[in-house]
């Protein structure tokens, strides 16, 4: 499963970042890394981007970016 399929309220475990280079590195730098629990907080008023909570802080990302974050339900 990938993060973009998650709905607000869903919690999941990050399994893998399936993209290299700029986006992959950016996700890592913003604290999206495998093994971490994540919770989808909300979608923007126009559905995109989405906001997630990781370890006490909040990150927003577009769905097309979330597609590369593989997750599994805990």
């Amino acid at each position, binding site marked *: 499963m990938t993060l973009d399929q998650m709905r607000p309220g869903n919690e999941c475990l990050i399994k893998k970042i399936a*993209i290299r280079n700029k986006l992959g590195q950016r996700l890592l730098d913003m604290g999206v890394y*495998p093994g971490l629990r994540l919770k989808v907080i909300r979608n923007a008023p126009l559905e995109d981007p989405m906001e997630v909570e990781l370890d006490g*802080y909040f990150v927003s990302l577009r769905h*097309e970016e979330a597609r590369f974050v593989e997750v599994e339900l805990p």
Partner: protein
Amino acid sequence: MNTQNKRLVVLAGQPNSGKSTVFNALTGASQHVANYPGVTVDKMLGWYRHNGTRVEVVDLPGTYSLTSYSPEERVSRDFILHEKPSVVVNVMDAANLKRCLYLTFQLLEMDIPVILNLNMMDVAERRKIEIDINRLEKKLGVHVVPTTMKSGRGKKELLDVIAAVSGERSPVKAARIDYGKMEPFFREIAERISSEAILAKKISLRWLTIKLMEGDAEAQRLIRENHPEADTFIWFVEKLRSDFEVRYDEMPEMHIANRRYQVADEISRACIRSRAGLKASLSDQIDRFVCHRFLGPLLLVGVIWLLYYLSIVQGYNITNYTWPLLAKLRSFAETLTPKPGFIEIPLMRSFVLWFVDSINALLNYIPIFFILFGLIALLEDSGYMPRMAFIMDRLFSRFGLHGQSTLPMVLGGIYVGGCAVPGVMSCKGIPDERSRLATILIIPLLNCLAKVPLYVLLINIYFAMHKAWAMFFISTISLLFVLPVAKILTLTVLKNKETAPFVMEMPPYHMPTLRGILGRAVERVWLFLRKITTIVAAVAVVIFVLLQFPGLSDERMIHYNGEKEKALKTFFTKIKDTSYLDQLQGEKLISLILYWDEYKSAKMGTKGREAMTALNVEFEARDPVFFKIVQPGKDKTAKKVNRAFMNLSKARKGLLRQMRMERIDKSFLGKMGKWLEPVTRAAGFNWRVNVALLSALAAKESSVATLGALYEQEESGEALEQRMARGETGFTSLHALALMLFMVLYPPCLATAISVKLQAGSIKWMLFSMIYPMVLGLAVAILVYSGGKALDLTGFQAMSVFYGLALTLTVLMGFLKNKSEYEKERR
């Protein structure tokens, strides 16, 4: 240079860690902004003196990491690598230790002295987070200084530690991360590099090997520049990278980042005791409303409205008080210039007045800018900006823009009455190069304040029946230009520009400080004055020359002198029998003319019977004879002289007007206007309109002023509206519509053009931003005028049709998909 006495401290840290508060606390007022070479990233410099030693401070841009993917991270990294600071102060949010350590490890790997500054301790304490400082110091092998810089707590300790550490000569013994299964790979790379001693001396070997293993492009560039067998070496590194990935089924850069987080997690677990349960933070509670499906956008509209209301409306009200000051400045400048003659206006005089007028037009905006910049700082500091981006991103990204384009567009004038200068300047924060450039390039097409007078003028004359609709049309049409244009730009000229992921932090809300906001407002106004005013002044000179020269030929001057003599002769013949004849010879007549002008303008500015009496008393005291002529009362002789003088004055005004018209007509700008007429005729512009538009290049306000000069009044009191309507028979509402649309798409004023150059980082983009709107504007004006004429539409009909077309185009453009950046990388 004595290195003992010259110290360089660098502040590094993640965004929202209070880094600029630390910078301000350290340097106070002694700071300034510069630019890193080649990029549009601001370089904050400052200094302070501690125990007699001068310490230079550089505040690096806030970054989450130190990769080579963003300009901010690149400059931060290069600065540390090449400038070799005495010490790096790693400012971090104490309440967010774990994530901040991710950056700390990268700094430590660069083998430079690092001090950890745990800032915002008050927040951590409020959240009941206890940090074992000693343990943290031991684990990391560096000094850790807790502070709450907002209130100055811990500042002294930080200064002392900086002094101690930057004085040390011993090598750093900081903790290093064990990358486990990757270490053998590092060793292989290190062996290969260390045989090339050149590289190893310059920068940390450990850092370079890690970066190479990460596949960092800049590290590879360093190798290419320094390694004798770069290609073989890089091939070797690439092979190691793919070996690692095959063997462990993990990308090397992923492993490196993971290890950093793991160690950060271990350390923070060991050093932090949190007694607070996990409860929804206040920021999240606020966001339930701020980012709510319906309330969020509503609130956003409210914020934008307030921003306009406070800066544009209220700021404009303040200019009512500041304008008289500027007017005084003008009158003062006027007194310094040579006095005008009967028809001879000294060049110096017209130049000085023109110059002061041009600068005043700009200075007049300062109150507006001050409020605007203050409000932007408020939005930035409070943390609302990322929310704005979050709400608007979906809409804007469809047109190749970015969520963070919202604020620049609001400032530029999403409805009527923004200003492109702050709009362009606030594009700085957009991380995505392509969207940033697109935003910079479209901002000038929005409706800035200076475009409004021309709209109002034309709407009042030609759309008097549909005023409200015409105003609505012109206010919103700019948005319908901007969005498709942005899309087209990103699909064409900007296609190959660097993009950046949207992924951004939604930082906690934060109470801004008054000092911080005022400080930034002042700083930005000052920047505006310094950078913009000088250039506008220079260009004012150029436009002046273009409007004044080559001037009137000798032949024409002889003609006008003849006219002057004629007028004078008539006057003197009429008063020859009176006692006034002798008193008005030579210089005296000119003095009377100036006296009359002054009396007239003084009268205009005076209200009420008493004030008028006082004015009369004053002028009578100045010169009783002249006063008798301008206010003859019942005196028959004086009345006669007065009549003759009024005729003379009128004749002079007429001559001056004719000369001015002829001068503009013959000027370089006038010639250009005529030369362009064959092209602009299809858009319905005659040469006079062309001249007005050309003169507006310096500042758009000039368009109405120049039109005013070209349609100069015969008798005072007639509004420009009537003069234009009378002077331009055959000028229809269709002409006016074409002219208004051209004004919407008018090239940026000089101040904006300079901002474009500063923000886009090149003259090339500045020129592009000036040329493409001109071409587009002319095309639209021709389409509307020629098309409307062919279909025999009235201005209002053409307006409706055009609006429909623009709306359709915008919607269609929104559906046209930009190719996804990541399509090719999808597995």
